[in-house]
């Protein structure tokens, strides 16, 4: 009766049987699955480049970088500047709303709010981030625009201000939670030191915590810009499709994202220059957001203070 040999035999059996066959296959299978995310990126880059290339072959660069956008007219023209202009204006307004309010909320949550208040307020802010963008689009178009029309009578029913503001509100939770994370990473010893020397909480926030967390905060702004540039449904619904190159924010402007949505749902036939222009605009959008992300990663890595 030697129990030890039985166990050893069992292990030997296990090793020699199918268990190790599964063990040989699984890493490979998992690697294949893991490479799907890489393939997705490759797929995005390839489709964008491939069809954008066709577009740039058909349309001279001088026309692409013009202010004349009329893809559906008899003599179509594909100037991209009106779209970039619209994207910049909506994102700018969104940032003007999201940066001060988001940062203030972050300072409040990390410096002033009591534990209990924080426990209530934080999930509510996250709720704001969980609302689908189409709902914000509806809200901007059917509530914010009519409200603003009372203040600014000349406001068009499609304009840049309303979606800009609503987009900013949508981004507030993102700025707030990323900035708050950066501020919470500042060691308590520094905070307590400053408080012990007689600073008020506000002085601690502005003179100690903000400078120490500045890399994370700036990175959160950059990510917010990237989010605003890529936001689609709010601007499609509330900002409309005016393709003129203008700086009048009380009127409609088209962004890059809403151009893509308008043109695909307008049933662009495959193979036309208009169809390829979608991919050219998509490529520029992709490069814009990618650069913003890399910039954010660079800022938070390079300028991080390590304690």
């Amino acid at each position, binding site marked *: 009766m030697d129990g030890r040999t039985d*166990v050893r035999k069992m*292990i030997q059996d296990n090793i020699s049987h199918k268990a190790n066959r*599964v*063990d040989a296959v*699984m*890493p490979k299978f*998992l690697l294949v*699955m*893991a490479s*799907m*995310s*890489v393939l*997705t*990126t490759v*797929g*995005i880059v390839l*489709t*964008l480049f491939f069809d954008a290339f066709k577009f740039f072959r058909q349309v001279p660069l001088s026309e692409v970088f013009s202010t004349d956008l009329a893809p559906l007219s008899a003599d179509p023209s594909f100037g991209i500047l009106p779209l970039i202009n619209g994207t910049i204006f909506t994102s700018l307004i969104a940032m003007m709303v999201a940066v001060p*309010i988001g940062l*203030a*909320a972050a*300072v*409040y*949550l990390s410096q*002033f*709010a009591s534990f209990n208040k924080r426990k209530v*307020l934080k999930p509510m*802010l996250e709720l704001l981030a*969980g*609302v*689908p963008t*189409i*709902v914000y*689009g*509806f*809200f901007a178009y*059917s*509530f914010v625009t009519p409200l603003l029309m009372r203040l600014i009578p000349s406001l068009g029913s499609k304009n840049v201000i309303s979606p800009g503001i609503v987009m900013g509100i949508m981004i507030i939770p993102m700025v*707030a939670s990323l900035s708050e994370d950066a501020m919470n990473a500042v060691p308590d010893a520094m905070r307590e030191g400053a408080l012990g020397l007689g600073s*008020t*909480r*506000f002085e601690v926030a502005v003179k100690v915590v903000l400078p120490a967390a500045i890399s994370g905060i700036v990175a959160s702004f950059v990510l917010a810009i990237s989010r605003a540039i*890529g*936001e*689609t*449904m709010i601007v*499609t*619904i509330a900002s409309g499709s005016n393709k003129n190159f203008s700086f009048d924010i009380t009127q409609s402007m088209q962004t890059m*994202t809403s151009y*893509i*949505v308008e043109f*695909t*749902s307008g*049933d662009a036939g495959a193979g036309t220059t208009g169809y390829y222009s*979608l*991919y050219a605009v*998509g490529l520029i*959008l*992709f490069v814009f957001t*990618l650069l913003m992300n890399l910039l954010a990663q660079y800022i938070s890595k390079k300028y991080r203070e390590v304690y």
Partner: protein
Amino acid sequence: MEFEAQLLQQLEIEKDREIINRRPVRIDPARIRRRVWLNNLLQRVFSLSTAFAIAVLAILFYQIISQSIGWLDWQFLSSNLSIFPEKAGIWGAIVGSIGLILIVIPVTIVLGVSTAIYLEEYATEGRLRDFIRINLSNLASVPSVIFGLLGLSLFGRILHLGSSILAGGLTLSLMVLPIIVVSAQEAIRAVPGFLRDGSYAMGASKWTTIWKVVLPIALPGILTGSILSVSRAIGETAPLVVLGIPALIMRVPTSVMDDFTALPIQIYYWTLDSVLTREYANLASATIVVLLLVLFLMNSIAIIIRNKFQKSY
């Protein structure tokens, strides 16, 4: 010795002189009052801006719910689209959204959990792992409309799936993949090492350890992450619109290859149509209420799973 004593005395004198010459510290009550006043003022400003964001949320909910009253009833849920607003319903859109969920769940769980297991358990530190990680974090920030273009080319035209439920579901799956990978990674990382060691000590192989020890413990976290990513997917509009979902689908889809409409798409078209007919705004808000209720339900389930089944070691 004498020299040292002299030096010490010298130092004493210099210290005294320094203290005498130092500018007297004066406590300025006015300045302190000003600083405290500023502190209190800004505390109020900061708390008001937090309150502003939450107030907007409340207004949004109020606005949408009040517009949907009288429109959201059984007839609205169970009947199909119609050109008459009074008769229109969202049954087709509900079926379409459920179809999308049924595709997104298996695809993202298989792809996402496999990727997470590979990154956490198999991949060694090195370039390949860093590359996949950086790729995932960049993929997470690609605008959703770009995924629509990918779906339009890859699933719509190359694989000839058109604008079917399958094409839409696969496009959304790729879009939410980074979310589920990150949450599954966290869940797997939270499984304590001694359980793995125990399993190895019993003679279990690596895969047996992962399958029978790590995954069961990580399951609540993985489920929470997948519910959150699915709820992100069913609220998404832009990729589906880019895929070319037609504006008015009268037929309820019966297979994954059928053209379809989904809740967010219906909201989009009804919002656009509300310029012409006021009632479409009511239909849109009633649909939004349904969508938000579904999302709320899913998130509640996720939170319940997290709180109830997640053990801490």
